[in-house]
């Protein structure tokens, strides 16, 4: 009986171990298959062309700069929306709001996190873009600006939840000590709590940026369709194209194995690398968060 129990136990724990390691397997698989379909692009397209300023595959132009430029433009804009609003909301929820308001605000922000990107893109086309067009009297509402607003809004929940965790993690004693020295709540927030939560807040911002960079549907639907290198401030109000939107928009019409096809996968590899870098840097803080949660829940 002992031996049967022991071998059943071993079988189960081996199975469990296998599922644990599967995460590594999947990341490796993703990397391999992106590489498999995207690496040929580097062989087929000279680097000089890849760094060119025209993306016009039909005529053989595979310059990535306009796409990267589009991503950068929209990302900067979205960050300018998401960070102030997100951080302020996080600070408000974590430090200022009375308990009942907290319990209302948090679920609402969570709802935003769950809203499908295509749905927000739909509203963007139908309502937001026309409104912006009329309000700012510009030729089209489908521009980087609209994209920035939409994406900024979508990144807010990410910023709020990570930043809020970071602020919560600051030990109560810090605040009490400052209070005993006569500081106002406001001063405590800015001089004690926020600096103490600095690394978590930076992570929140980074993860928010990562979220913006990776967004596809909403940005594709509202930023127009112009892979042009952004030129000057007015570029913000003209159509543009991000890396993600390019893949989504063009992959459907591309012949498998063609140069265009490989080029799109290459863009995918670039996006993968960017997200890898952002996540590895943010990983350190997430680890520390994990142990904090353990301490609280044990």
């Amino acid at each position: 009986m002992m031996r049967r129990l022991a071998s059943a136990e071993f079988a189960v724990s081996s199975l469990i171990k296998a599922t644990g390691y599967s995460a590594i397997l999947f990341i490796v698989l993703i990397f391999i298959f992106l590489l498999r379909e995207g690496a040929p692009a580097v062989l087929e397209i000279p680097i000089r062309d890849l760094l060119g300023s025209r993306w016009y595959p039909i005529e053989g132009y595979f310059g990535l700069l306009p796409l990267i430029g589009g991503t950068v433009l929209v990302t900067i804009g979205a960050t300018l929306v998401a960070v102030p609003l997100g951080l302020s909301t996080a600070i408000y929820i974590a430090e200022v709001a009375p308990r009942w308001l907290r319990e209302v605000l948090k679920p609402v922000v969570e709802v935003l996190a769950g809203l499908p990107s295509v749905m927000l893109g739909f509203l963007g086309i139908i309502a937001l873009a026309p409104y912006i067009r009329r309000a700012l009297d510009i030729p089209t509402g489908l521009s980087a600006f609209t994209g920035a607003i939409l994406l900024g809004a979508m990144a807010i929940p990410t910023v709020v939840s990570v930043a809020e965790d970071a602020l919560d993690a600051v030990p109560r004693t810090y605040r009490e000590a400052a209070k005993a020295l006569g500081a106002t709540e406001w001063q405590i927030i800015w001089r004690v709590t926020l600096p103490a939560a600095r690394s978590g807040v930076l992570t929140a911002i980074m993860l928010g940026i990562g979220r913006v960079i990776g967004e596809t549907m909403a940005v594709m639907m509202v930023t127009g369709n112009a892979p042009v290198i952004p030129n000057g401030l007015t570029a913000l109000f003209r159509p543009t194209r991000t890396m993600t939107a390019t893949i989504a928009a063009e992959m459907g019409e591309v012949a498998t194995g063609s140069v265009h096809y490989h080029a799109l996968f290459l863009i995918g590899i670039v996006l993968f690398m960017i997200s890898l870098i952002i996540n590895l840097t943010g990983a350190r803080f997430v680890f520390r968060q994990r142990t904090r949660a353990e301490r609280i829940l044990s």
Partner: protein
Amino acid sequence: MAASVGRRQWIQRVGFASLLLAAVLTVIPIVLVVGIILFRGAPAINLEFLTAMPSDGMKSGGIMPAIVGTFLLAIGTAIVAVPFGIGAAIYLSEYATENRWTQAIRVAIINLAGIPSIVYGLFGLGLFVLFLQFGTSIIAGALTLAIMTLPVIISTSEEAIRSVPQSFRVVSVSLGGTHWQTVRRIVLPQAVPGILTGVILGLERAVGETAVILFTAAAFFLPSLPSSPFDSTMALPYHLFVISTQVPGMPIQIQYGTAAVLLIFVLGMNLLATIVRSRARARRQW
């Protein structure tokens, strides 16, 4: 020299007001979005809309196949993601020792969580659709969605498992239990509500995903419902995308209606997760 008390109070009042303003600016659009879609979409939703096939080039009739397709994708995703996710969570919290390999697993999970959805779409295309020759199919889409959903399930499940008090495990072992018996009889049952919440939230995201199914599973104009996992399918998010960007003359009612159905799906799952979470808290026996 510290500012006078009055001035400091004033700064605080302004500061708090601006924080509140930011919070309001964040919240109001959310309420507006949900409100607009529900308000304008509700009129289009009736029994026919939900249960009939589309007609007239999608411009009238119902969106039933899209709803069914979304269900099928969700089920397929759950079938794969749940066992892998819970298994990995059990491994990380109950069996793994803290070494290089375990760190690698955690890093892998964090990265899986951060990969852009369109990149998942490319991956699914490369591996499942082309290499394994599944073609554009429910199975290709579900497998890709499952891998994308793994991190959410793993992290919420792990947290749920870790929150079960260590003292239970010690008692179980002291009564002659093996590790797996302890996990199966005490830890897992107590962690189920947390795990369930994670699964629901993970599926909520999968249901709303378009970029992933763009090249792996979705089709727009299918004359009939899928009959096997290797068929492609219609799906709500993809349907919404196409009818709002690629079909000239699409009645606005149908667009809003489709968006509303999708929204109700998503909000419903959100609500379900909240209910599961709060009921679990109330019935906890420790």
